[in-house]
């Protein structure tokens, strides 16, 4: 099972320090967009909640 938040929470955007509202079923690894600066962020950890800029990676054809 993928770890996920247990309740709504407001976090701080690592890019612009803006307030980031996260709903209750946000998953570990999920990508969320900061409404203030528009940066794409990755939920890198749930307990405790940690965020980071989401990696931009190229197209992937792995099979």
């Amino acid at each position, binding site marked *: 099972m993928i770890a996920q938040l247990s309740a709504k929470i407001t976090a701080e955007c690592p890019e612009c320090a803006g307030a980031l509202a996260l709903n209750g079923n946000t998953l570990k690894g999920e990508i969320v967009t900061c409404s203030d600066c528009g940066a794409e962020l990755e939920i890198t950890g749930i307990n405790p909640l940690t965020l980071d800029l989401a990696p931009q990676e190229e*197209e992937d*054809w792995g*099979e």
Partner: protein
Amino acid sequence: MITIKIGGSRGINMDYVCDDAAELHKAGQKIILVHGAGNEANELGEKVGYPAKHVTSPQGFSWRYTDRQTLEIYTMAAVGKINTFLVEALQKRGVNALGLSGVSGRVMEGTRKDAVRIIEGGKQRILRDDYTGRVEKVNAELLRALLDMNYLPVIAPLAISYQGDAMNVDGDRAAAIIAGAVGAEKLIILTNVVGLMKNFPDESSLITHIDKRQVEASIDFAEGRMKKKVLGASEALKLGVPQVVFADGRVEHPIQNALAAKGTVIE
């Protein structure tokens, strides 16, 4: 020297392929075989109670999410079962086949996607334990040495990352990179259809010839897995392989048919 990709999908007649490969090899034709593992890996995953999970990238490409346990299942199917018994079948026909996965001798090396973006249930997510990657380098020196000793290399679709992790790779693209690296005259992709068709599955709409400059555009005619085969073809052409042929792997003499341009020829 020709490189032949045998699809992992159902319908391809391995006996016909091995008969043809043996005949050509004995006539002096140097061959490298690359195979897939899709179905076998799925079946084994079901049997051991850890079914394969496919994920899709935001751009619409899907692949097998290969966490460590899936990698073990994939490797048992690809290297253990398909590769070994393909080598056995060729040995039985008097061909000294030699099976290798790309992990061995770093035959296929490349970048593992340590962070892969997928879309699931409307949410985008990053996967960090996906042992999937892209082939970027081929140990052509080893493959040539084996060919010179008259072996027929049979390559399983597994590569090694620069950090030394085994990883699941796309067999079609792997065949393309190998063909380019060893300077193959042709890359033959055997599938369970007659070739690329304008109106799939109407076989009378078979496209017999495509100019290599239009290969990217021809992806529109490709259904599902065929997309990857067309990408593989275009990769091989870019690497200098003069000709790529899509041919029917269900009929007798599938390789000789391809050599006689029966199917879709891209050059």
